[in-house]
């Protein structure tokens, strides 16, 4: 069974440019999470989806960050415009409804110059 897939794995952009990350969860997992991991820190939740509905986006900086999960499967996280402080690893995770296991993807490492 394929795990959580993320792309790209690495991205380098200049500040003020837009960037998008893509996540394909494990097949059948209806819950999808985006986490942000700064260097030397633990991941922090940005947004959680139940199917196509964002049920917890309280930690998402909505002035520049947006996310969507239109068909309740794949998800895209966008930053526009990017700032230097956005340099981090963006992790996607998925789980089955009411399951206690969250499975993490490999992450996208973003560098903003």
């Amino acid at each position: 069974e394929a795990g959580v897939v993320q792309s790209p794995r690495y991205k380098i952009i200049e500040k003020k440019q837009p960037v998008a990350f893509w996540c394909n969860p494990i097949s059948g997992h209806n819950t999808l999470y985006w986490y942000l991991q700064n260097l030397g820190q633990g991941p922090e939740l940005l947004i959680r989806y139940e199917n196509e509905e964002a049920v917890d986006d309280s930690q998402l900086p909505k002035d520049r960050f947006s996310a969507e999960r239109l068909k309740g499967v794949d998800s895209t996280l966008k930053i526009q415009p990017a700032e230097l402080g956005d340099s981090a690893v963006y992790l996607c995770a998925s789980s089955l409804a009411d399951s206690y296991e969250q499975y993490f993807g490999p992450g996208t490492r973003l560098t903003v110059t």
Partner: protein
Amino acid sequence: ELKVEQNPLFLSMQEGKNYTIYCNYSTTSDRLYWYRQDPGKSLESLFVLLSNGAVKQEGRLMASLDTKARLSTLHITAAVHDLSATYFCAVISGGGADGLTFGKGTHLIIQP
């Protein structure tokens, strides 16, 4: 606000020694997770502890949970170099499929 604190944040130890990593959390939770992360890699699930007094063991690692003290421990027995990694504990603040709140991680180096 749920807070998760790990200590130590950095640990250097010799092969063959035993040590314990501690994880404290600030509010009631009925689920605690331990993950391992190797440099440049994603998170690998080690243990999920679901109830007070739960103990799980895998190889040289053993995790336990005391919900009354809001404390979990990850014990390493007779450490080997391959266990060098960063270890995170995480707690779920609500039920169901809520997001996880992570500690800052314990960076573990095991030297021959």
